[in-house]
């Protein structure tokens, strides 16, 4: 959307379509990058605080600016970012240097591309694809190439283990995630994210918002399957086996440090944003207000969307600091023997539901 508007506007100024296209992409890409960086910074801070509070600690604290990372440790992430940026750039002697340096960027590109289709509000969306849902799922799997590259290029057994586990995990969990996101598509009859959200306007029985999650029991289950698969796709506990710190040291990131590692981190949190965004758009009514008709216009859209995304990210953090980690075979067991059959049944169920009530 934003890109289209920009191109149209630039075309009115003069007749240089190629330059207009490049300009439009760059102008909308920079805020996207800023969103990514800001998201990572806020999320890291919140993750620190949430984990600390859950563990009866207080997390990063400070008595004021200066050495103590700001009031309530607010400057902690800034300090971390600065530290990571000025760190020495180490590349292991025996690594495959080209792949080693390329891998972070591939992962970053995957996350960045996915972010382009996230509908932040009615108008705030970089590109409004016809096949938005499909696009996000598709570019989401670019990251796994980067992970495998990183693991292979590090020439480290731990990294290799991490990469292999990660590849197996992400590819497996895309299936239940894909099967579950089919349900909103079936119900709304569109893959366009904006139309999907518009479908969810209004209310059922006058109280509950007409979100897909509340539409029928099958979509209710589908949301949880999608959300848990999404956690697995972002490699977070209880599915963090690719970087299980007690087993694989740091998995595929073992050899990375400094800026490259920071990019991994940025991408991980951006991925959390994307999958939560997709879950919100697909099941939780996107930028719609939870009280139908109230605060439902303009900038409120952004507020509701980000609020819903933030609560989903919080739940991810909550999971992470509560649960132990699964083993590889149990992970596969959960995916193939629990989630996929239930997701399949869900599709059937929704089909029949639609036939009867729709």
């Amino acid at each position, binding site marked *: 959307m934003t890109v289209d508007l920009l191109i149209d506007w630039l075309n009115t100024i003069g007749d240089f379509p190629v330059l207009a296209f490049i300009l439009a992409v760059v102008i909308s890409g920079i805020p996207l990058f800023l969103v990514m960086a800001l998201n990572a910074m806020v999320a890291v801070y919140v993750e620190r605080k949430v984990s600390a509070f859950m*563990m*009866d600690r207080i997390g990063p604290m400070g008595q004021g600016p200066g050495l103590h990372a700001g009031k309530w440790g607010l400057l902690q992430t800034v300090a971390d970012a600065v530290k990571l940026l000025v760190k020495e750039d180490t590349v292991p002697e025996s690594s495959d240097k080209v792949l080693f340096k390329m891998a972070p960027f591939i992962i970053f590109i995957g996350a960045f591309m996915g972010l382009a289709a996230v509908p932040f509000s009615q108008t705030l969306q970089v590109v409004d694809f016809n096949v938005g849902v499909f696009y996000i799922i598709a570019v989401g799997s670019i990251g796994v190439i980067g992970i495998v590259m990183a693991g292979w290029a590090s020439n480290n057994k731990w990294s290799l283990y991490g990469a292999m586990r990660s590849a197996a995990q992400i590819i497996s969990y895309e299936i239940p995630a894909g099967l579950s996101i089919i349900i909103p598509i079936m119900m709304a009859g569109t893959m366009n994210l904006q139309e999907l959200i518009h479908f969810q306007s209004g209310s059922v029985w006058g109280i509950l918002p007409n979100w897909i999650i509340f539409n029928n029991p099958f979509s209710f289950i589908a949301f949880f399957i999608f959300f848990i698969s999404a956690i697995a796709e972002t490699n977070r506990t209880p599915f963090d086996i690719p970087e299980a710190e*007690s087993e694989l040291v740091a998995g595929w990131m073992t050899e990375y440090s400094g800026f490259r590692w920071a990019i991994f981190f940025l991408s991980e949190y951006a991925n959390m944003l994307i999958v939560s965004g997709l879950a919100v758009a697909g099941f939780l009514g996107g930028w719609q207000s939870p009280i139908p008709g109230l605060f439902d216009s303009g900038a409120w859209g952004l507020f509701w969307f980000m609020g819903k995304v933030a609560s989903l990210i919080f739940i991810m953090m909550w999971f992470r600091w509560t649960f132990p980690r*699964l083993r*590889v075979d149990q992970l596969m067991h959960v995916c193939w023997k629990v989630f996929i059959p239930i997701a399949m049944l869900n599709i059937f169920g929704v089909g029949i539901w639609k036939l009867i009530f729709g």
Partner: protein
Amino acid sequence: MGIVHGDQMILNIGPQHPSTHGVLRLEVKTDGEIVSEVKPYLGYLHRCFEKHCENVTYEQVVPYTDRCDYLAAMNSNFGYVVAMEELMEIKVPERVDYIRVIMGELNRVASHLLALGVYGLDVGAFTPFLYMLRDRERILDMFEYTCGARLLYNYMWVGGVSHDLPKDFVQICLDFLDYFEPQISEYNELLTYNKIFIERTADVGVLPADVAVSFGVTGPNLRGSGVKWDVRKDEPYSIYDRFDFDVPTGTGEFGTVGDCFDRYWVRMLEVKESVKILRQALKDIPDGDVHQAIPKKIRPPKGSVYRRTESPRGDLGYYIVSDGTPVATRLKMRSPAFTALSVLDEISRGWMISDVIAILGSLDIVLGEIDR
């Protein structure tokens, strides 16, 4: 686990690894994720404990025993002084016995809390670890209040203890127990009954009873295999025969008898039993002088003694050979973690890398004691 034959890869776990519990190196032969052999290499923390003991006087050995099992230093002290008193035939005052039992059991609770918490950490749960450490910290505070040190106490001396208890110690300790007992159920709800945790530990790394005995595995690991053997009950030392407590054994609640879950669960139950002993000891503790039996000069008669006591990790034995001088001819420590580690290869074959970490964690080793 299925058996797949492929090319073998040698993986070096440690000496610097987050979950080797110290500086232990494991050479693991793997086939993909499946482990076919685990070879432990020891000695990274070898500090010549036994050689030192042949060069210092008997009093000066006590600080060295602290540093062997640094997580349960009171129990290390306890074993040494019990062995020495048996050799010298000293009868200590009753109050000293009670103080020692209280300190030993408190330290058992502290050590088990760390073992359980770190086990949670090994399988990926971070939060229970900090809850348990928070409560362990209160026990360490009590030790600091008693003897000034938090970790390496040098508190028990041959024939007595270095200080009497503070006046209000009994009340402080009772307050702690009142606070602590409800916490155990919280740990259970958060970690023990968690389905993911059960899946990770039940049926994993089964240690049958006969193998355990043959490997000399003792303590909670042996009891996890269903053998009712506790030195406190079966060869009572000090005043343990006065207390009423159970010896929990593994029952295979969620899997097979002797799996990782049983070893974990036995520790959890033992914490409860320790609390029971503590309550009895705090109730009955008599008054008296704690220094009257301390000999001026420790010169044991010629001879040797082997005495084992129940440390949190198992049978902690001291073999002391004396030739009548104030310096030992030979002082050997039979460390329970040493025997527990030797069984690792046997029970982790055929499991995955993640399980090796889980099994190693369930054995609860302390490298300071293995390498001495």
